């Protein structure tokens, strides 16, 4: 069986338009959450989000022609730009590859062709709305002729995509799979929709403090825009072209809780099961895990149940494993979250630095693990988990290891 390695990656979030800018701000413990600027949110219960920096509007024209841009939504543009830089980092020249063995699998909840989109002509409506737009544009850009599709499993979508890409390479049916996802749901319909589910923080007066995973006073998640794209490659292919290998994707698990459309299974049982399966599938012992990048949404139930699940799986060892939530800084990037957070985890492995859980000012006595509070921490990481859990009971846990 082929080993699966990461040879390129990039992310775009509220904290930056490329990987290095994001990393710098994440390590500094900055928040990308601000008052919503993309529409008039003054009548919404939630008036804050982690939007992409305004400079994104100046960035994408460097990569996307006007004609194509008119056929894309904002999130499709973000995904495309993100993919271009990830591929560039990988050093792959697809003209030298068997393009029938190169694929694109993206996790996409929606292309966000909503009221926030402007200048949509009837001719472009379908092209902008179609759920497969992002993977299609990337495949077109590089003329990749392997399978090219989108997987939708809500907030676990891009983690699912990464798992499916892993399978393709592992089984020998692809050499390279571009995986990841993107999301942008900062629009009136979706903010109001999540407000109706009581899922979002309403801490409008101090946006940068609103996302506070694992804290006692957490009051919901903050929506974030984002894109994360990785280039997965077989070890054989990567070595053949002397690529720099960033990490090894060691395995994963995806499960369905079959419990409730919104709430996680009681006491984190479904989450625990998924973590156990991921460890088993990747041949990883609990003592190997040095770090967990948590789903950590800042909602009452997720953070409680995720903590319980980690304790159930790791026992006493759970207290020795640092756990942090990137969502405290970049909000919840929904369909992109799995990819964005895996990229952050790989950065932690390669820089021996853990990103913090910011806004951890009021510990919840019932959540008593090490959440890497407020400040980045130096630590060698050889093996880590990246967790993603979603409405609908879609769970995913990715196991990522230092390549050696």
């Amino acid at each position: 069986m082929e080993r699966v390695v990461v040879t390129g990656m990039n992310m775009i979030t509220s904290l930056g338009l490329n990987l290095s800018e994001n990393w710098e701000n994440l390590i500094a413990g900055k928040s990308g959450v601000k008052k919503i600027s993309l529409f008039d949110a003054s009548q919404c219960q939630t008036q804050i989000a982690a939007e992409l920096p305004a400079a994104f509007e100046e960035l994408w024209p460097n990569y996307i022609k006007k004609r194509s841009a008119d056929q894309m939504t904002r999130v499709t543009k973000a995904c495309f730009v993100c993919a271009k830089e990830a591929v560039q980092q990988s050093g792959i020249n697809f003209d030298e590859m068997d393009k029938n063995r190169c694929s694109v699998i993206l996790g996409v909840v929606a292309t966000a062709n909503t009221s926030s989109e402007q200048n949509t002509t009837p001719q472009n409506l379908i092209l902008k709305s179609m759920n497969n737009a992002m993977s299609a544009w990337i495949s077109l850009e590089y003329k990749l002729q392997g399978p090219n599709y989108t997987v939708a499993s809500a907030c676990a979508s891009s983690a699912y995509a990464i798992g499916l890409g892993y399978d393709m390479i592992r089984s020998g049916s692809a050499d390279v799979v571009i995986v990841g996802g993107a999301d942008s749901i900062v629009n009136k319909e979706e903010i109001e929709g999540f407000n109706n589910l009581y899922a979002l923080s309403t801490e409008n007066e101090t946006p940068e403090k609103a996302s506070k995973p694992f804290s006692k006073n957490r009051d919901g998640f903050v929506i974030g825009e984002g894109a994360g794209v990785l280039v997965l490659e077989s070890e054989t292919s990567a070595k053949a072209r002397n690529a720099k290998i960033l990490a090894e994707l060691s395995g994963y698990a995806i499960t369905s809780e079959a419990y409730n459309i919104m709430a996680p299974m009681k006491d984190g049982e479904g989450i625990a099961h998924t973590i156990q399966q991921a460890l088993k599938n990747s041949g990883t012992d609990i003592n190997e895990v040095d770090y967990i990048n948590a789903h950590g949404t800042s909602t009452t139930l997720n953070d409680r149940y995720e903590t319980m699940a980690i304790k159930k799986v790791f026992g006493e060892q759970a207290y020795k494993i640092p756990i942090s939530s990137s969502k405290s800084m970049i909000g919840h990037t929904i369909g992109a979250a799995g990819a964005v957070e895996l990229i952050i985890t790989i950065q932690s492995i390669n820089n021996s630095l853990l990103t913090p859980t910011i806004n951890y000012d009021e510990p919840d006595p019932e959540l008593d693990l090490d959440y890497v509070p407020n400040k980045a921490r130096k630590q060698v990481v050889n093996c880590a988990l990246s967790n993603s859990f979603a409405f609908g009971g879609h769970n995913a846990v990715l196991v990522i290891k230092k390549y050696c």
Partner: protein
Amino acid sequence: MAKINDNTRNEVKQTVYDFFTEECEVDASALNENTNIISDIDGDSLMFLELIEIFKKKYNLNIELKTIGKYVVKHPVETIGQLIDMTMLIIEHENNIIAFD
């Protein structure tokens, strides 16, 4: 059915060149009648339909897209030159282009 004169082909050519210059963000000097619309200048099939709509309005043409579709199946249009030639046929013969085999 529009009246064809010596200037018609030049008008059509100019419209086609202006369209692709704008939509594909290429310099007009990079275009010629052998330019492949998809592989050379990253065009798309929708452009073809948009151009037909422009010419339908400009020359008040009675032509249905399904007629063009049937014609194109037998006479593929890949280059700018082929597009201009087909447009001239449409202007001259409208829905009767289907008779041209």
